[in-house]
């Protein structure tokens, strides 16, 4: 079913686009997969990132990405030693989700996220990963670079399939739980007093983050995953006139960075994750620059968009849920 979509619908569409535009790379199946993966990542990264950034816990995405690397290493290690064929993405997902819940439960008892506790988990995860990889030399180190820095050409059909499923799950969960997530992000204490199960929504948040970083790992690389979660959101927050719009703007900024980054990576033969992050930072800086240049223009934007509020009111905060 998914394969049919990937080849006969999406693939055929991209082939046509390649012919029409005369851009060859759009016709290569592996590049088609890379673009699709990047586009999906740029939806879920900023989507979940918007809640994370405004709860001031964006570093958790970096932490979980590094423990996801340990998950990859576990998968490769188990495969080599026990002759299994566990997809590294699956073992990464399991390890990242477990770590996310572990960190969250720890926080529930200790009070707050601290830099040092996140640093311990981050380096610890990465340390375990590096040990497992070097303990079993030979075939295992193959492809590690792809997970560290991201790689366009290794995005398999299977991986795109998993990523599509992840996007659907993350997207619908955020859509359904939009209101409680927003309330918890904005004012967790009041949300708790108002009877929301704040603890469960916080857990949901970190689990979604784990899913996002694992999904994004293949293109972005574990080291740069946080960039896709944080930078588009920061750019959007500067100009967005409401929370709802900031989510949309962050996804747009993310898409721009993802498509630009993948294209640059192919054309110049450089790392995709790096190009995407640099493109995202370029967006962020341009927004600041334009804001400075416009000066009063920024507040004028607020006024103008204010009048459109009535139109959007009907669909405000998650009517789809």
């Amino acid at each position: 079913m998914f394969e049919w979509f990937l080849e006969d619908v999406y693939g055929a569409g991209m082939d046509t686009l390649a012919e029409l535009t005369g851009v060859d790379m759009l016709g290569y199946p592996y590049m088609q997969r890379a673009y699709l993966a990047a586009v999906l990542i740029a939806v879920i990264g900023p989507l979940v990132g918007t809640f994370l950034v405004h709860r001031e816990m964006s570093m958790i995405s970096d932490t979980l990405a590094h423990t996801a690397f340990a998950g990859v290493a576990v998968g490769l290690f188990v495969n080599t030693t026990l002759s299994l064929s566990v997809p590294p993405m699956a073992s990464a997902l399991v390890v990242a989700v477990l770590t996310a819940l572990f960190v969250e439960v720890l926080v529930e008892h200790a009070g707050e996220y601290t830099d040092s506790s996140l640093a311990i988990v981050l380096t610890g995860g990465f340390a375990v990963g590096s040990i497992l990889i070097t303990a079993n030399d030979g075939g295992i180190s193959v492809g590690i670079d792809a997970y560290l820095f991201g790689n366009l050409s290794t995005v398999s059909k299977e991986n795109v399939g998993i990523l599509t499923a992840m996007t659907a799950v993350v997207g619908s969960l955020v859509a359904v739980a939009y209101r409680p997530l927003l309330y918890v992000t904005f004012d967790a204490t009041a949300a708790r007093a108002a009877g929301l199960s704040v603890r469960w929504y916080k857990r949901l948040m970190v689990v979604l983050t784990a899913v996002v970083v694992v999904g994004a790992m293949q293109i972005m690389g574990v080291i740069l995953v946080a960039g896709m979660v944080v930078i588009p959101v920061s750019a959007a927050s500067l100009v967005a006139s409401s929370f709802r719009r900031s989510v949309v703007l962050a996804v747009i900024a993310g898409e721009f960075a993802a498509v630009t980054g993948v294209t640059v990576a192919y054309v110049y033969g450089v790392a995709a994750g790096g190009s995407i992050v640099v493109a995202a930072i370029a967006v962020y800086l341009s927004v600041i620059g334009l804001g400075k240049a416009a000066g009063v223009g920024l507040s004028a934007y607020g006024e103008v968009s204010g009048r459109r509020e009535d139109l959007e009111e009907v669909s405000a905060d998650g009517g789809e849920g």
Partner: protein
Amino acid sequence: MIGSSHKEATSETSPEKVVSVDGVSFSHGDVPVLEDVSVDIEEGAFLGIVGPNGSGKSTLVEVMLGLRSPDSGSVRLFGERAVNFDDGERIAYVAQDATDTSRDMPVTVREVIRMGRYPRRLFGRFSEEDRRAVEKAMEEVGLEELSSRRVGRLSGGQRQRVFIARALAAEADLLALDEPTVGVDAESREEFYELLRDLNNGGMTVVLIEHDIGVVTEYADEIACINRRLYFDGDPSEFVETDALAEAYGKDQHVLSHDH
């Protein structure tokens, strides 16, 4: 309109009590924060809680709202055990510094006020009633003009009104505020307290933690003075005539007076 619903739920022990704190003690690790404190809040009351910094005022309110579980003693909220209380829409809480956080978060006045309806409508479409409650709350605190402005870009006084409007939209029966006017200019503060008085006259029960004794004696109809223990609980006019304040604050404490 405010406080008119849910009367039937308060039947269990004493129908007129919104909060009943009985012999409550609480400690953070080895540090005692509250010792044998008993306070009741009647329906429609305006209770001011005063005490020096670190005297356990915030903890007391958190215990009242069921956000913290006391080490000993009992706390009832609308007749139910506070920690098990699950009728969250009846309670609105503006925590200390709540209004200061998320300055950079792009959330509008309307988006925040709509949160007041979330306990009733966490999923699914807002009903006509939900929308009306939001609009009405916005009008009552005079924020219609600012409805699509980002909360972080409002003045301190305006931001406070957003949080009050959220409580109004919730049609909460109990509003608890923890030092809500820190960093708000004097004129806005007075307006803010007048607004609280109006809400209270409309039937909403109010609990206010306030470091400015003058404000409390002027607006509250009951004062609880604590510093770990309860030093006074009663009428404001009696409070100023007792030594409770001096005792609670210690001899040479500097006490804020009303001439701000």
